[in-house]
């Protein structure tokens, strides 16, 4: 009997150890080649690399890796070799904050690209700001991150080290509302959100503009992102008589939600933000997804002339995963850090100064270059000056461009 329990304990320990190794090995996933001598500068990446949102997160990681490799190949900054350190936040604010602390502790890290989720961004900002480490998010769209919680009335920039290349929900929500009301001619909307920083914020800005335009909100609902049974909500949508659904949230929930709404008998499109603009949304929604709409920041990356090179290089880079919605923005975010580092190094006789982190933050404010997604520069709040948005629609199992434009308020 004693021996048996020993076997059992050993087996349990072995299983536990295996899992732990699996967890550990995914973290420190460098990727770029070092070598070629000189100083190494690490660009941190924080994104969900596993779990529901990993499709978007891996696209971010790969694009940053591509930027670092390109800079190394072109010897863009003399004497500096860029490396990336990618950490997995699993889309959770608590994990993101630990990752932020970890990146701050590594002295070679001079800038961080990420995260994907606004809620994670919220938890990381202060950690980075205290360490004067620059953070550029390719995907955070919640306005409060750059303009303070009272952004509607009085804009105050909370953290000097936080920048983003993504357009905010203050623009994205109203842009979607104008498209739905004016172009798609839908007047009765059912608004659903997932209560997270991103989803609730987006739903709120959409609702405000839609009402202002004269549309009617026939129902609101908040779903539980841990659930995947939205049938009760779908039945409510059907009986509300809405002719369109707006969903503030991300594709892991939006896919099943769209499917269940259509199955309940409401053949109306679901409209969402950049959080549902992913190939995985179509996979999860199945045939029911046809006709659904999503707004995403910027012009379609594949169609911009400046992006052709990025797409070609990404393919040549041999990455297993697609670059997804934020690939171009991630590349630009990483490149902005590279530009800032270049400026700092060149202003200091080709060497990194001792207070490189603080200098990079200052340099970032004035960065300006032609990136994958257009002109990349930041306004006084750290927001992208590029306010281009695009509406996409699901057709034949793929996202197709419907309308591109700039929101003018």
């Amino acid at each position, binding site marked *: 009997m004693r021996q048996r*329990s020993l076997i*059992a304990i050993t087996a349990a320990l072995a299983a536990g150890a*295996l*899992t732990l190794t699996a967890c550990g090995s995914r973290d420190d996933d460098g990727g770029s080649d070092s070598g070629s001598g000189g100083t190494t500068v690490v660009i941190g990446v924080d994104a969900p690399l596993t779990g*529901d949102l990993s499709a978007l997160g891996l696209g971010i990681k790969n694009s940053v890796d591509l930027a670092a490799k390109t800079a190394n190949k072109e010897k863009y900054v003399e004497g500096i070799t860029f490396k990336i350190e990618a950490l997995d936040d699993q889309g959770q604010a608590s994990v993101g904050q630990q990752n932020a602390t970890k990146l701050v502790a590594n002295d070679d890290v001079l800038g961080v690209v990420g995260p994907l989720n606004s809620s994670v961004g919220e938890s990381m900002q202060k950690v980075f700001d205290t360490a004067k480490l620059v953070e550029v998010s390719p995907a955070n769209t919640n306005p409060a991150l750059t303009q303070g919680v009272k952004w509607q009335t009085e804009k105050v920039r909370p953290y000097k080290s936080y920048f983003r290349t993504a357009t905010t929900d203050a623009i994205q929500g109203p842009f979607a509302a104008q498209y739905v009301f004016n172009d798609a001619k839908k007047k009765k909307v059912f608004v659903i959100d997932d209560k997270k920083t991103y989803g609730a914020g987006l739903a709120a800005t959409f609702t405000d503009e839609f009402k202002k335009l004269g549309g009617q909100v026939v129902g609101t609902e908040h779903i539980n992102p841990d659930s995947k049974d939205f*049938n*009760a909500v779908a039945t409510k949508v059907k009986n509300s008589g809405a002719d369109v659904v707006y969903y503030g949230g991300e594709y892991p929930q939006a896919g099943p939600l769209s499917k269940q709404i259509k199955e309940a008998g409401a053949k109306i499109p679901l409209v969402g933000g950049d959080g549902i603009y992913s190939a995985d949304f179509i996979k*999860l929604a199945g045939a029911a997804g046809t006709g659904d709409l999503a707004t995403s920041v910027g012009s379609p990356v594949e169609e911009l002339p400046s992006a052709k090179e990025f797409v070609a290089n990404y393919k040549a880079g041999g990455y297993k995963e697609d670059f997804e919605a934020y690939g171009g923005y991630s590349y630009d975010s990483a490149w902005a850090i590279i530009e800032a580092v270049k400026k700092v190094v060149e202003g200091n006789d080709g060497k990194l100064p001792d207070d490189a982190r603080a200098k990079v933050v200052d340099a970032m404010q004035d960065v300006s270059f032609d990136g994958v997604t257009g002109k990349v520069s930041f306004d006084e709040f750290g927001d992208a000056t590029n306010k281009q948005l695009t509406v996409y629609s699901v057709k034949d199992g793929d996202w197709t461009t419907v309308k591109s434009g700039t929101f003018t308020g």
Partner: protein
Amino acid sequence: MNELPQQLVNGLLLGSMYGLIAIGYTMVYGIVQLINFAHGEIFMVGAFGALTVHMYLLPDGTSIWVSLPLMLLGAMIVSVLVAIGAERFAYRPLRGAPRLAPLITAIGLSLALQQAIWAFYPNAKSKLAFPQIEGGPFSFAGATVQTGDIFLLIAAPASMAFLAYFVMRTRTGRGMQATAQDPDTAKLMGVNTDRIIVVAFALGAVFAAIGGVASGLKYGQIDFKMGFILGLKAFTAAVLGGIGNIYGAMIGGVVLGVAETLATAYISDIPGLDQFGSQSWADVWAFILLILVLLFRPQGLLGERVADRA
């Protein structure tokens, strides 16, 4: 339009799913007084077993009517093997140990199974698509039922009927009842209690596997953590119905499912409760119901057992 029939059907379907899994909790608890927190993961590996049969063992384009029985079989085999393995290597060595030890083991096993699927099953780091039945949906009496749900509507009552027959009429079933009443006396009367316990784990796993396939068909996707929340809900359903009572598990599941659905649908219509009515509050209402039931009937809705063991 009156949405009550549809919402009741939604709740019934959700509840049947809870019930199928709750049976496993309640049977194991009834016989060995162990809350098998790894049972949600038995359900999860069942769904992955079915998907493995579909993706790797059957040729592409096999009709769902051919593959469904095979997938079900695959799910059951995987679930039962994992459950029996868990019983043999994780729980049996701890049978004489204090209650906390097997409970902690169960929680650890649950994490280990989740992470094992996460780490070793191909592409399991994100959600995987599950095959769907074409056709439908079907409408009757003001409610719509999806084709994928038909399986659950048939499987849940059928499983329940089979279990009732098994426990009441077969020799092994009576052995289970005897072991549940008093394991030591049952042993003295010639019941092989070790075998009975294995049968209880295996039967629970069979129903969990059916639930896993039903979940895949219903939602069209599976992932490595699908068993965690559902397992907690099923455990709640088992407690609500009276843990240890197999009929209580199904009743508790259906009551919980219907309560969640109706809370989502109607609470927001009550003046003043507008903001507590959304789906994100449905769990809160479900647990309020659980607390109320346990306040007035601590043994659960159908439970006969009143804390007869410390």
